[in-house]
């Protein structure tokens, strides 16, 4: 296994204990009700868990992507759900553009309170017309004096129902990449509304919204960075987002494996434990192999990213590797649990449903493969 530093191991342990104390006892309820309580964001922030990987200058805890990876491993090992991770850490996709390019006003108004657990933010790129083709978005922002007037709709937006603000990708110019900008929309802006709370196969603890913007008037100072740079700002964050999704992938797989391994020791069929069958043991070892490969490769790509290497292609491959692992391993875990694995309330069933999102969200596998092909010169 890839070595973490002593400090990363300690952080992972803190995350694991936080999860066991504050999350696991309530998780089933949150999965049922479909959303996390605001209080959890505050408690997690007070423990310093929301700011890891964000600099202290913007209200974070400091540390690198690798520290954040270690922390996420702690959550996943303790049995956190995909929805919980997505919803509690939505700021991981909602604030980075502001941190990298936003004005001090945006940092103070949105980033600091979010890392302090006081505000909840979302990122809205995907539209009913398409998610993979980011350059094709149609939601429009028209300059009007000191404001922008926004019209359009977004869908599949994580934490969008609870969000206090939405970092929104809008078209401010012509067609294609260069016509896109990023702007922060307060959710109490007249004309902005949550039109639907979407029901999903998995990620139940996470609220997912369809959003509508009808003549929503937003101050121009909420524009992030420069006009027309939105696509590039979004693309810059893709490496980190994909590494986190990869982490979630092998996190689901590792947890499902450990649950299945225990079950195979305890469950007796034909007078002996399941694990006494060679076919079962070889399944478990294959699951173990996939987890090891996914984890080692993902952390290696994260390490190279932190070291300053260009790993755009490798981040695609890491995500692909780890999410395939998640889908396969959770599937085998359900299989080994038999009927119990198909029952609602069995943890592996939840991981199986949660894992299915990963090859779609944050860049569908086909799209990422194609991108990697171009970057690696296979075109």
């Amino acid at each position, binding site marked *: 296994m890839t070595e973490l530093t*002593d*400090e990363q191991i*300690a*952080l992972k*342990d*803190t995350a694991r*204990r*936080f999860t066991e104390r504050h999350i696991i006892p309530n998780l089933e309820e949150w999965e049922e009700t479909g959303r996390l309580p605001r209080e959890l964001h505050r408690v997690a922030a007070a*423990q*310093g*868990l929301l*700011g*890891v990987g964000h600099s202290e200058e913007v209200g974070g*805890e*400091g*540390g690198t992507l690798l*520290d954040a990876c270690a*922390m996420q491993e702690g959550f996943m090992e303790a049995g956190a759900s995909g929805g919980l991770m997505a919803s509690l850490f939505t700021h991981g996709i909602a604030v980075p553009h502001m941190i990298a390019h936003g004005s001090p006003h945006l940092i103070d108004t949105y980033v600091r309170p979010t890392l302090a657990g006081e505000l909840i933010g979302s990122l809205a790129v995907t539209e009913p017309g398409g998610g993979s083709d980011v350059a094709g978005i149609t939601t429009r922002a028209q300059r009007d004096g000191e404001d922008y007037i926004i019209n359009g709709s977004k869908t599949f937006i994580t934490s969008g129902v609870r969000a206090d603000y939405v970092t929104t990708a809008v078209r401010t110019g012509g067609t294609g990449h260069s016509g896109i900008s990023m702007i922060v929309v307060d959710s109490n802006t007249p004309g902005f509304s949550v039109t639907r709370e979407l029901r999903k196969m998995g990620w139940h603890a996470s609220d997912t919204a369809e959003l509508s913007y009808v003549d929503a008037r937003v101050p121009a100072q909420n524009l992030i960075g420069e006009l027309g740079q939105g696509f590039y700002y979004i693309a810059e964050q893709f490496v980190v987002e994909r590494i986190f999704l990869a982490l979630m992938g092998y996190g689901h797989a590792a947890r499902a494996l450990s649950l299945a391994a225990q079950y195979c020791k305890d469950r007796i069929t034909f007078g002996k434990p399941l694990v006494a069958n060679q076919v079962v043991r070889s399944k478990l070892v294959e699951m173990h192999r996939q987890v090891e490969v996914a984890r080692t490769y993902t952390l290696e790509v994260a390490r190279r990213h932190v070291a300053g290497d260009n790993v755009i292609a490798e981040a695609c491959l890491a995500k692909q590797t780890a999410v395939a692992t998640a889908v396969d391993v959770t599937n085998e875990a359900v299989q080994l649990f038999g009927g119990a694995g198909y029952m609602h309330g069995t943890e592996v069933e939840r991981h199986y449903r949660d894992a299915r999102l990963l090859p779609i969200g944050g860049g569908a596998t086909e799209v990422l493969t194609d991108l990697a092909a171009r970057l690696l010169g296979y075109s």
Partner: protein
Amino acid sequence: MNVVVCVKQIPDPADPGALDPNTKTLKRDGKLILDESDSYGVEMALQLVDAAGSGEVTLVSMAPNGEVSGLRTALAMGAAKAVLVSDDALAGSDALGTSKVLAKAIARAGEADLILTATESSDGYTGTVPEQIAELLQLPSVTFAKEIAVDGSTLKVQRQTEAGYDEVECPLPAVVSVTAGVVEPRYPSFKGIMAAKSKPVDQVTIADLGIDAASVGWAGAGQEIVEIAQAEAREAGTIIEDDGEAFAQVVKFLDDLKVV
């Protein structure tokens, strides 16, 4: 208010421990962690210093091979500094030998208003060190504290008993052992973990503390471990298949035990 907390670093209870057949003692050559029993004392000390508004928490530990992993955990929780006694001559120390070393280390840690310990360690369970330290330092000893408050120079302790608790008062400084589970130990934040890396650990030998090697370790031990043996394996339980009448057998079983 300055509080010293004695903390033990022990082999991780999650990994099965092993006894050394030659020395007949627990093997401690791997990585050691903070004894969970001590995390309650650390938490209480941090709360007391917080409430007092000034002062700091200092850790005292005796461990082989200059081990600091467990100390770093407590430093990450918020303790300011540590004194670590590590010396090959300490191998084989019994409870009294350990107490002698800790008493000297506490003196080295500076002026203390209060000294906290756990009631017993999770790997040795002798449960005698706190009282011995108090005796060696000529300080009052209060045991099994579930709540501690400081009022001027008076210490007020709720001392856990089987029936409830006693209210005990004594002058400061004093040595108090803290019952496990009475407070919720904080877990270290990332900033705390990073800050702990550079907090001072004063590592000393017994010579630095002016302790005679003959009075500690194997040489000074008044206790001898004569023999170690495998604990008897627990007998397999009886499995009753419920045919609708199993309750009768359960009642009979409890009846035989004379518990109903």
